[in-house]
């Protein structure tokens, strides 16, 4: 019963996540940008813009310039999460890709780094009066949701030890439309329940900053309005 519930939830959540994010990206892509609004100094070539974006996404360059604490916690969280997600590929691949196996030991510590980053962000949100002022309930809940996912995950790794082979069979089964029973340990159900929640709210929340950063005209446009006349109609996807 629980297995069926979670299976259905995961199917629904996956569809909502993929369709929701795709629709948003489609909308951003198709919304014209009427004028050149490059934030300068900026690269004067498309290649330069891409390089700048890579630095931005990998190093959080701007955030480093703005505020060292948010940078530190934010970077810890995001890169912890990235490694954790990559490590989780082992539950979806058979045989496990070699580089995913390599990540195994790092991926576990990354879980702690991610958790610590989230705690830092939450403390900052509560302690710094400026950030507290701009926070809505959803801003705290989002952090708590991620903390819950991290905490339940770490619990399974280091305390509860559920049957990971069965969990993997469940997910591989999901991908092949062949449902296998899901272990019903509490940490597993909590962890997966929270993940489903996150997947569902992703496209309708501020988590859309992840794809959104690639559509912020101030950073994605090339600084060349004198060299090349900017005509908005032809600027779709710019």
């Amino acid at each position, binding site marked *: 019963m629980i297995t069926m519930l979670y299976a259905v939830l995961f199917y629904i959540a996956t569809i909502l996540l993929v369709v929701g994010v795709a629709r948003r990206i489609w909308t951003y892509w198709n919304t014209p940008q009427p004028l*050149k*609004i490059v934030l300068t100094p900026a690269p004067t070539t498309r290649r330069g813009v891409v390089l700048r974006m890579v630095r931005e996404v990998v190093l959080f360059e*701007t955030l480093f*310039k703005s505020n060292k604490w948010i940078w530190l916690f934010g970077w810890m969280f995001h890169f912890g999460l990235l490694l954790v997600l990559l490590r989780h590929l082992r539950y979806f691949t058979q045989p496990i890709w070699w580089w995913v196996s390599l990540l195994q030991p790092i991926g576990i510590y990354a879980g702690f780094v991610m958790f610590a980053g989230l705690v830092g962000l939450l403390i900052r949100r509560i302690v710094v009066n400026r950030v507290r002022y701009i926070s809505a309930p*959803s801003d705290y809940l989002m952090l708590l949701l991620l903390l819950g996912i991290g905490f339940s995950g770490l619990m399974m790794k280091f305390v509860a030890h559920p049957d990971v082979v069965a969990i993997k069979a469940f997910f591989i089964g999901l991908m092949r439309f062949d449902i296998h029973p899901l272990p019903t340990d509490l940490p597993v159900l909590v962890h997966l329940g929270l993940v489903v929640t996150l997947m569902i709210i992703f496209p309708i929340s501020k988590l859309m900053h992840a794809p959104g950063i690639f559509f912020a005209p*101030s950073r994605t446009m090339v600084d060349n309005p004198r060299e090349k006349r900017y005509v908005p109609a032809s600027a779709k996807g710019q």
Partner: protein
Amino acid sequence: MVELAIDNKISRTSVEDPLAPPCMTPGAMAGSKPYMAAPEHNIKLGFPGELPDDWKEKAIARMGYLAETNRAFKVYLDTCMKCGACTDKCHYYMGSGDPKNMPVARQDLLRGVYRRYFTFAGKYFPKLVGAVDLTKEVLDDWYSYYHQCSECRRCAVFCPIGIDTAEITMAARDILDHVGIGQKYSNEIIGKVMDVGNNLGLNPKALKATMADLEEDIEDETGVAVRIPVDEKGADILLITPSADFFAEPHIDGLIGYAKVFHEAGVSWTVSSYASEAANFGMFIGSEENMAVLCKRIQKAAIELGVKRIIFGECGHAWRVAYNFLNTLGGPFDFLDQDYPIPQHILEFTWGELQKGTLNIDKSRNDEYRLTYHDSCNVARASRMGDEPGGQFEIPRNVLKAVTNNYFEMPEGTTKEQTLCCGGGGGLLTDDLMDIRKKGASPRMHALKQVEEDHGVTHMVAICAICKTQFAKMMPEFGFERDSILSVHQLVSNALIMEGQVDEDDDEDDDMDDVPAMSGAPATGGSL
């Protein structure tokens, strides 16, 4: 405690840290509101004269229209993750402590409404995501706080995902205009450009007479017949400069500088009485339509005068419009000489002449000044000069260093891309907003205090008409002389020895220090 370690790039004791975060005081600036435009001024710009009965529907419809037609607006409203990186970066927040002047909080005034009517979460769980109904109170808040933003983009420099509050401010003002709530200062001035050709309402006859007087003054002073041609067909260069350059101090000394440089470079040039304004307040109110009307005037003037090049004088937002938008909204400019940048900045021209060696410069003629340079926000963060990114910082400094001996930088974190706004940009340069102007100017003034103390700096130089007017007003408020703000081209003018120049024995004539027009009614007084 978390704060201290990070926010203070400059730790000093004697002078106040220009970037120090203020004590947060909710509601401190709630009463700050500019005068509203009269109905006829709104109607002239294509907006309803006053608040219609169905204002709420109209406002929401306009918001929806912007979300569909303006990617920046849509993406910026959707993607802010409330990280707080921008919260201590706005000069109006630093100066006032009002939390609604924190960039993200300013955006949220509009974002809350957007969420309520255009997002799933806001429609069904408004409390959870901070979504709010559009009410008259919200509209009032918009009018107040979106006129406490100078659209200077300093916050955008620090946003990890590239959100630019200026775009939100422009959109908010546009929505307000669409329900008949216009700002007197900006809307009146735009109308004046449409009628007369410039912000000041200076008609062609008066303009020609003023320029003729100026030619006489230059000749009296130097013995050289430097021309300031108006409406001269067949000239090579059309100079578009802020109309403040035609009469206000220190702007006019800059204009004299351009004229001398053109004279020495041996080029033919003219100003146009039809397009006698570089400023484009259409940008301030976020109205592409009105911005386009003013841009088209420049194209028309260029065609009618048969010029080959367009050069812009010292003006901040005007250079943003010229550099980024003119080609889109006022173009194409395929009839101009394509070998020159379209448009070109006067500093690019002067720097080119300095490099070529056509100007005979005696730096010591500026030795009475110890100078620092204020990067104007729109030039720094919304444009470029020269071919390389950052040329907008280097070229003005290069020119300054080429014509003066005593140059000093203000503290890091207050210059170049992180420059502090003068506090009067974005349509705030009006007497009815004097309080917020002063608060917004204070970080820059504290930075100036530091270099005054460290290096004995006596004067600050700027290349924006709004900066110049604002600082002329602010300097005395912070213990500086009113005339301690200068134009770059004023210094070029001082140092330049033209061919055949015979210096008149200069007895200090103090009448130049009087600036009658600048303290007058907002419509003329600081119209940039």
